């Protein structure tokens, strides 16, 4: 299958639902190493994104992601708003005007998302941020597509890689974001942004798998 408008809307909507359902965990992760608002931020931003789809239905999957990105910038606040928002906007721009995006195009869009977040936030892998879930996820997605996987299989590979990346943030010392103020005290905790990234990618895997079924 390809990523069409409906599936893109379903993705963001599912991500909003999954994040809201898991908001307390994101809050708790961010309370341990930050200021405790990551759960509320992501819930608010993704809710705004889904609301925008209803208000002004996007015509293409690219437009869906651009609209989602704009909503996240406009409504989330904090560090995660500009980062996720810019990332999704760039992913949407990369999809162009096509009404459907093949897995390879989706891979490029995810790459654009990763590049956008890295450029804006200047974090590298190992800095204990969302990048530590997103970068392996994007690499896994690309590899799966190169191996001929369909959209659902590539998305599942990405979600699995993100979960591994999230787990791998535990022993890291944060070098970016609020957790970096703690220095060595940030070791032993999952990064909140990596946790929300994992939820977002799992949502993509869910909707593309269900869709295909």
């Amino acid at each position, binding site marked *: 299958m390809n990523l069409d408008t409906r599936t893109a809307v379903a993705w963001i909507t599912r991500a909003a639902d999954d994040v809201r359902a898991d908001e307390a965990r994101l809050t708790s992760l961010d309370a341990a190493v930050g200021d405790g*608002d990551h759960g509320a931020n992501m819930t608010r931003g993704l809710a705004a994104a889904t609301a925008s789809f209803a208000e002004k239905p996007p015509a293409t999957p690219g437009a869906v992601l651009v609209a989602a990105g704009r909503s996240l*910038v406009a409504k989330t606040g904090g560090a995660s708003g500009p980062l996720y928002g810019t990332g999704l906007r760039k992913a949407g721009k990369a999809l162009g005007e096509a009404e459907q995006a093949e897995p390879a195009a989706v891979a490029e869009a995810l790459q654009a998302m990763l590049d956008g977040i890295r450029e804006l936030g200047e974090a590298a892998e190992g800095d204990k941020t969302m990048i530590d879930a997103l970068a392996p996820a994007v690499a896994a997605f690309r590899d799966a597509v190169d191996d001929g996987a369909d959209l659902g299989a590539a998305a599942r590979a990405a979600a699995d890689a993100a979960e591994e990346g999230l787990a791998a943030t535990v022993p890291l010392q944060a*070098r970016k974001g609020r957790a970096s103020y703690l220095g060595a005290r940030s070791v032993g905790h999952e990064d909140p942004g990596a946790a929300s990234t994992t939820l977002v990618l799992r949502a993509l895997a869910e909707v593309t798998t269900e869709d295909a079924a």
Partner: protein
Amino acid sequence: MKKLINSPDSVIADALRGMAAAHPALSVDHDTRVISRAGGAAQGKVGLVSGGGSGHEPLHGGYVGPGMLDAAVPGEIYTSPVPDQILAATKAADGGAGVLHIVKNYTGDVLNFRMAAELAEDEDIRVSAVVMNDDTAVEDSTFTAGRRGTGATVVAEKIAGAAAAQGADLDAVTRLVTEVNDRSRSFGIALHAGTVPAAGTPGFELGPDEVELGVGIHGEPGRERGSMAPVRDLVAYALEAINADRPVGGDVLVLLNGQGGTPLIELYGAYAEAVDWLEGHGATVTRNLVGNYITSLDQAGFSITVTALDDELVRLWDAPVETPALRWGR
């Protein structure tokens, strides 16, 4: 933890209604969430905008008025405001002579203000920004997100406000704020965690004998846990950290700030200790603020900001100001 609120979701909106009702000299845009001067921007004057998460009141809305900010941008509790908000504030502050953003150094604040500055430039408003990073608790290195912006933000807003009111141009005001930042160091210690309305319970746990040394203004941890001690020792710890980072001497301004849950009687006792320590280390405290100026909801604790003064800064500090939280001069 019981909070004097209607619901966690309505805290900001309710507080903005209250500020609007209490302060006729302020104009509050409840939809966009911008606090500005009722009379609008002064034409030809550099506009001053600051903002950040809510929960630090009176910072920043309480500092809007003649001699200080033109507009303040309150985000959700402890959450950076969004670019559209900051853009609206920038427009409200724009008197045609450019706008200075005073930004506290947190990733979210920096990114959202930067995005807003780009939007403003697209609308032909010249925007300059200074990122405050006066907090001495966190190491400033490539291995952290950098030092945090804390109490010196209050000082910077006052200094900038006076300079702008006196007709300084955007570059001059920017230079002064940068100078305040360079000349200031801060350190905070929490005795008890505060409670964010959405969470309902304290943000962190401090044992009966523990304090958080170098705590942040959003209740985020800092340098390390320490042992509870008499205030003279806690003040000494904070000042030693400040002094090690930027040695004190000469005339200084001290902000002995309450984090929200510490009574004024205790803040004055802490101030007495601060003055003694500084005078014992060759500094003379010639200006001060003692009270709740940059808070963290109901967190119990204090922070100290020490700003090295010169004649220009003293004159700008003494210049008249007329805001909800700071008022003096004629």
